């Protein structure tokens, strides 16, 4: 009898501290754990007792890569309580800043974090030595995303200009319009990106995923929508907790997302959004996807890099359209009255659906807060992918298997810091 142990103590090119432990006995996986040892961050507990108005600035601190997801989910939940609806110009600015977050996050992940896996390189530094132009492109894409965050949000990391009801200040027309040239370049760069990554070799694996994402009637859902799945779920955001929950497992400091009907793991993120909203992609994004060989549903998790690139096309196009038609709103925010109640908000963070709910008292103080980030929800499906990848690649030597497993985890661009609220790999072969 032989036992193999594959172990990664600290995963590279992911956000936060995680690990992987796999024990294989006589060619069968006996134990597989995607562990998160990043310490819990207790954001929900910090929020209790704070004023509703502080929530965007506090939740922005959950993540340096996707602060908008946290700010906007929280803001929407407050607006749900107070009965606030924002006018189109403010809604457009919200979508614009969210597109900025997708552009910087997807740009970073596709090129600097994930592409090295497919090119047989250890990291972005080696990629820069072999293909300087590629890395320059990634840096420029990321900068354009950051510039949007800075102009609309006041600064690129932990933006400060978002509030319940709208913005503190609306950006002047000239500054927004000035983004157009960069976005035209970014759109072309994104189309080239889809072509490039579409040509990578992908390990053959197809999974029968349960996809969950937001869906919106009029657009590729980013910052608003109903929660839908490919198994018939179609619910308003406020019903999220009727269908989804989280459970604690010993090997993770992040709660695992579960679907209450017991139907097994579910996936949030680019593959889910793409499958559930393919008909809402722009003709140009669809054409790019088809050109890269993608159908309307992608079940190979390694092709998530191509789907991210298609989403880059979409985000650049949407951002450009908003920029080119931008008129300064009459007022930066809408007035409202504080009242007690329970509210819900959900948006599509670059890594997937991010849900918030809050209970606020009559004075506007937060009495209860709960946030369910995308990486927490994806932990079970990541473990399910890893099991499939390990089973299909038992013939590989330990080092090669370890690499493949890490690559499989990076398919999810996991944000462990957010979820703890990633990876050391151990493979034990017995």
């Amino acid at each position, binding site marked *: 009898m032989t036992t193999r142990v594959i172990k990664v103590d600290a995963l590279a*090119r992911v956000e936060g501290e995680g690990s992987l432990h796999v024990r294989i006995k006589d060619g069968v996986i006996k134990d597989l754990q995607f562990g998160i040892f990043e310490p819990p961050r207790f954001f929900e507990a910090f929020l209790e007792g704070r004023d509703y108005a502080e929530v965007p600035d506090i939740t922005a601190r959950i993540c340096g890569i996707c602060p908008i997801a946290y700010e906007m989910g929280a803001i929407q939940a407050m607006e749900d309580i107070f009965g606030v609806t924002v006018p189109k110009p403010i809604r457009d600015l919200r979508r614009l800043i969210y597109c900025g977050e997708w552009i910087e996050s997807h740009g970073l992940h596709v090129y600097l974090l994930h592409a090295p896996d497919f090119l047989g390189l250890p990291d972005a530094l080696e990629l820069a030595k072999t293909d300087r132009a590629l890395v320059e492109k990634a840096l420029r894409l990321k900068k354009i995303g950051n510039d949007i965050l800075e102009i609309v949000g006041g600064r690129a*990391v932990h933006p400060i200009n978002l509030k319940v009801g709208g913005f503190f200040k609306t950006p002047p027309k000239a500054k927004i319009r000035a983004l157009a040239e960069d976005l035209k370049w970014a759109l072309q760069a994104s189309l080239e990106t889809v072509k490039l990554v579409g040509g990578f070799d992908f390990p053959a694996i197809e999974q029968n995923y349960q996809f969950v994402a937001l869906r919106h009637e009029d657009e590729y859902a980013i910052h608003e929508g109903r929660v839908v799945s490919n198994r018939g779920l179609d619910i308003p955001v406020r019903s999220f907790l009727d269908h989804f929950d989280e459970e604690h497992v010993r090997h993770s400091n992040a709660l695992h997302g579960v679907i209450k009907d017991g139907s097994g793991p579910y996936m949030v993120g680019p593959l889910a959004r793409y499958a559930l909203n393919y008909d809402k992609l722009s003709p140009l994004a669809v054409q790019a996807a088809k050109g890269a060989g993608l159908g309307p549903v992608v079940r190979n998790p390694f092709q998530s890099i191509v789907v991210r690139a298609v989403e880059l096309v979409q985000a650049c196009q949407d951002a450009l359209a908003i920029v080119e038609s931008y008129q300064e709103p009459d007022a930066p925010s809408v007035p409202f009255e504080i009242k007690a109640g329970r509210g819900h908000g959900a948006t599509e963070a670059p890594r997937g659906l991010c849900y918030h709910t809050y209970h606020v008292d009559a004075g506007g103080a937060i009495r209860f807060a709960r946030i369910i980030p995308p990486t927490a929800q994806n932990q079970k499906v990541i473990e399910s992918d890893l099991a499939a990848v390990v089973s299909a690649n038992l013939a590989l030597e330990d080092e090669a298997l370890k690499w493949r497993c890490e690559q499989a985890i990076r398919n999810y661009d996991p944000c462990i810091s957010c979820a703890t609220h990633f990876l050391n790999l151990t493979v034990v072969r017995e």
Partner: protein
Amino acid sequence: MILVIAIGNVFRRDDGAGPAVAEKLRGQDGLEIIQLPGEGTELIEAWDGRDKVLVVDAMRSGRAAGEIRRFDGLRDDLPPDDFASLSHRFGLAQAVEMGRILGRLPKSLTIFGIEAVEFGQGLGLTSEVAAGADRLASEIIGLTTGQ
């Protein structure tokens, strides 16, 4: 004009060492001071094309708390794991190396690391690190005034 880039998060105790130095330098003639969280691509954008840049950041290398180490960003290899990296392990050390590969470093780049000990949640530096930040601020003022 010398660009001073202070890296750190004031809400994580000694990680605020860089911002503490920045506060002491504020108003000093001849210095432009910016604070950044330490994400690598943003650092490259900040120093690219500049003449003289000083970077101040907390580090953890096992030396005595408050000890200051100085690196020449154009010549020295930074210890990759001693400076905190904000995101996806692409922080200061990786930004310096990437800047070198891409030819996107300033003409002069000096990196000061302040040895820190406490990175828990909360405000305020530990006393040794606060003293180190004071000494480094004085040293930088000395550098800029030619003393």
